[in-house]
């Protein structure tokens, strides 16, 4: 029976240990003057007695208690927490996850659709706010992210060596990948390089903004869902999708892609790039900063000549389609477990509104002014970083508290101070990024299905999601023919996809009215 009980035990254990798992965790019944949070963590959990934590409490005039959860386990911890009786007041969640959707539908979280407008700092961009909703129902302020982040990063020094220009079309990309593979761009006399670097993508959702989806959109396929003949169809049921996948399959079969593209960990994505193995990465544009950091460690003199970033590419006939992002990453949902009355809710939202003000967001995503940073020309410049106490503040900002920010500065958005290293290559990268984003937004293919969550997907997603995701990968690996890939897509439709398509069409048209 052990297996049957695994899940039940896990849920029960979480219910019991909810308090202990928390950050401060003295008692389950935090008093009325305390707000409990749960959010992601990228390092070690900040000390509640720490300088930054105290500064935030002082600013809010309230105590806060945060359950910090390592990013890698976040969704699992959310699902387990939702099943416990210790849901924090404010929870950073992906509003589209089935577990949250069900909990929200059952009334575990406050529906803020009619209320959020009263708190000006929480609204943000109305379109993005709608995107973060469940079928138009808004459950909390979203955490802002740049609307367009997709880019291509190329080894600039290799490009020079093989004598090619920056790519404009997918054909150019193919040529560069071919030259990087065959022309020994690192000049070590060995045939040990490849062009494109693709990692094993975590999760099984189809439209995950991974390199494959980016290339689908470049070839003109919908971004997740798109209109064809007056109806919304999924990305993979269009001729452009097959066009794009033929292109990718060719690259993979000809060895222009890293051979371990099915097992390379995303955390090691940069390694082949900086270790002279591969020369192209298709990902979010902020990765360029990481790459610059890594090259700077190798050689502080020449790192500026190593990375070339370009925006979305046109397809062979010159038409350009760019992949935008949803503009947000998770929302701050308010649970009803402790916040029971409208008055309590109003009190809490006022506090969140205060936290979402410029002063609050600066605390969360810059730190304490005059202590770990100063403002110069509207930018944050780090100071006193040699002092371990100040370094602690800086770490608490970067690894933890920025994850509570709704308008924190990330890349090109947010209301806090942008933070740019003073060195020229970084400044050049950011300046170019802003231009690129503005340019690519003109050709952005938006996903009309973002605000809707079809009920069949919630019910059957667990079985349906992997079907096409896995089939595409198998097709690219040469294990399935195009006919077999089409058969898998049909299997998706037959298993419930037909209903999902119907519901998406209905829900989106209802939303438009």
């Amino acid at each position, binding site marked *: 029976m052990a297996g049957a009980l695994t899940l039940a035990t896990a849920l029960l254990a979480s219910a019991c240990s909810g308090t202990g798992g928390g950050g401060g965790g003295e008692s389950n019944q935090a008093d009325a003057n305390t707000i409990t949070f749960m959010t992601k963590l990228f390092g070690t959990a900040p000390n509640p007695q720490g300088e930054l934590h105290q500064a935030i409490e002082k600013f809010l005039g309230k105590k806060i208690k945060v359950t910090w959860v390592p990013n890698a386990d976040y969704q699992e911890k959310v699902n387990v927490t939702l099943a416990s009786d210790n849901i924090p007041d404010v929870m950073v969640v992906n509003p589209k996850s089935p577990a949250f959707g069900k909990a929200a539908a059952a009334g575990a979280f406050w529906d803020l659709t009619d209320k959020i407008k009263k708190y000006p700092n929480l609204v943000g961009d109305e379109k993005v706010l709608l995107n973060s909703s469940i079928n138009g129902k808004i459950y909390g302020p979203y955490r802002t992210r740049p609307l367009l982040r997709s880019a291509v990063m190329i080894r600039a020094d290799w490009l020079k060596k093989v004598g090619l220009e920056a790519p404009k079309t997918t054909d150019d990309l193919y040529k560069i990948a071919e030259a990087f593979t065959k022309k020994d761009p690192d000049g070590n006399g060995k045939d040990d390089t490849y062009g494109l670097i693709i990692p094993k993508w975590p999760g099984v959702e189809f439209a995950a903004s991974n390199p494959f989806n980016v290339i689908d959109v470049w070839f003109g396929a919908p971004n997740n869902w798109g209109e064809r003949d007056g109806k919304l169809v999924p990305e993979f049921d269009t001729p452009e999708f097959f066009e794009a996948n033929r292109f990718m399959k060719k690259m993979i079969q000809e060895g222009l892609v890293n051979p371990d593209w099915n097992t390379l960990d995303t955390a090691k994505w940069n390694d082949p790039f900086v270790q002279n193995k591969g020369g192209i990465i298709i990902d979010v544009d902020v990765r360029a900063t990481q790459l610059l950091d890594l090259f700077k460690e190798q050689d502080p003199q020449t790192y500026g000549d190593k990375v070339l970033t370009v925006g979305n590419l046109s397809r062979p006939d010159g038409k350009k389609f760019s992949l935008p992002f949803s503009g947000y990453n998770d929302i701050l949902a308010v649970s009803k477990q402790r916040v029971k009355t409208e008055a309590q809710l109003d009190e809490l939202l006022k506090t969140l509104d205060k936290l979402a003000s410029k002063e609050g967001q600066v605390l969360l995503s810059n730190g304490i002014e005059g202590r770990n940073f100063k403002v110069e020309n509207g930018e944050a410049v780090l100071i006193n970083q040699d002092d371990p106490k100040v370094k602690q503040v800086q770490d608490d900002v970067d690894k933890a508290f920025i994850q509570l920010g709704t308008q924190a500065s990330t890349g090109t958005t947010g209301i806090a101070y942008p933070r740019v290293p003073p060195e020229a290559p970084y400044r050049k990268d950011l300046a170019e990024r802003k231009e690129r984003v503005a340019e690519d937004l003109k050709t952005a293919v938006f996903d009309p299905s973002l605000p809707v969550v079809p009920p069949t997907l919630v019910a059957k997603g667990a079985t349906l999601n992997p079907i096409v995701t896995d089939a595409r990968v198998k097709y690219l690996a040469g*294990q399935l023919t195009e006919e077999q890939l089409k058969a898998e897509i049909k299997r998706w439709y037959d298993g419930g996809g037909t209903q999902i398509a119907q519901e998406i069409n209905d829900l989106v048209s209802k939303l438009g009215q």
Partner: protein
Amino acid sequence: MATDLAPPPVKAAKVAGHKPNRAQTLWRYRWLYLLLIPGLAYFFVFKYVPMRGLQIAFQDFVPFLGYNGSEWVGFKHFVDLFTGPDFNRLMYNTLFLAFLNIIFVFPAPIIVALMLNELRINVLKRSVQSLIYIPHFLSWTIVASLTYILFSVDYGVLAGWIHEFLGGQKIDYVAQPDWFRSIIILQTLWKTTGWTTIIYLAALAGVSPELYEAARMDGAGRWRQLWHVTLPAIRPTIVVMAILMSGNLLDMSFEQIWLMTNNLNRGTADVFDTFVYYVGINQGAYSYATAVGLFKGVAGVLLIFGSNWLAKRLGQRGLF
């Protein structure tokens, strides 16, 4: 552990014979019963109390609504499971791996123990024994990382050697579904064989040397001794190990398989345990996952009763 303490007092009571009533027996062996309590408490708290949660397999469970508020849907999730696209694949994968486990993993420690038993140099015997059970102390995470390091198509050391030796196309052992089961069985052999060998060695140590002497007197060679003395002597141990294993046949090592799964081999890799985790914890479909787990649990119980019955039919002592 504590359940092992339970039988002696009961037996002792029977031997004692002069019709003691229950209260007297209880009082007489009170200290033994007291020793039993922590064990019973463990099973009650961690194995029986959570069973209350099994009811969510028959509900459309939403945590916020709780056990009482969630809608009762009866066998809907089981119908979904048996008619859905996953069941055949999960059943096939699980049974196939179980079959490979019986064929390769189960006999391996017996063979190793017999071989070690034949070694006459004690130092060598001891050191080999110690060396092969070290992997038992490594976690699956480490075993999986080692596998990736050795077999990855890009930088795998062993994969590189095999490629140099055999030539031809480079094979992506860790991503190809065809290689998945071989890798899993190899990992299991490497990690578990040494440890289980200890149990058989202990059984072998208990075989009376007089039996061997008698066999030698009758002119039995090494193989004859093995066949007619050694194996019959450890047969009860083998049977008990077999019955215990049959109960766990459907419990594939979750961590091991989860760590070795990727998009390409998922079709081959998914077994009931990984599926329950993925659907329940990752996707938040609590009820469906519990239904799958419950089915697996029931099947496991049937298997252990079945093999126990079979063992008795074949004239062996069963477990119960």
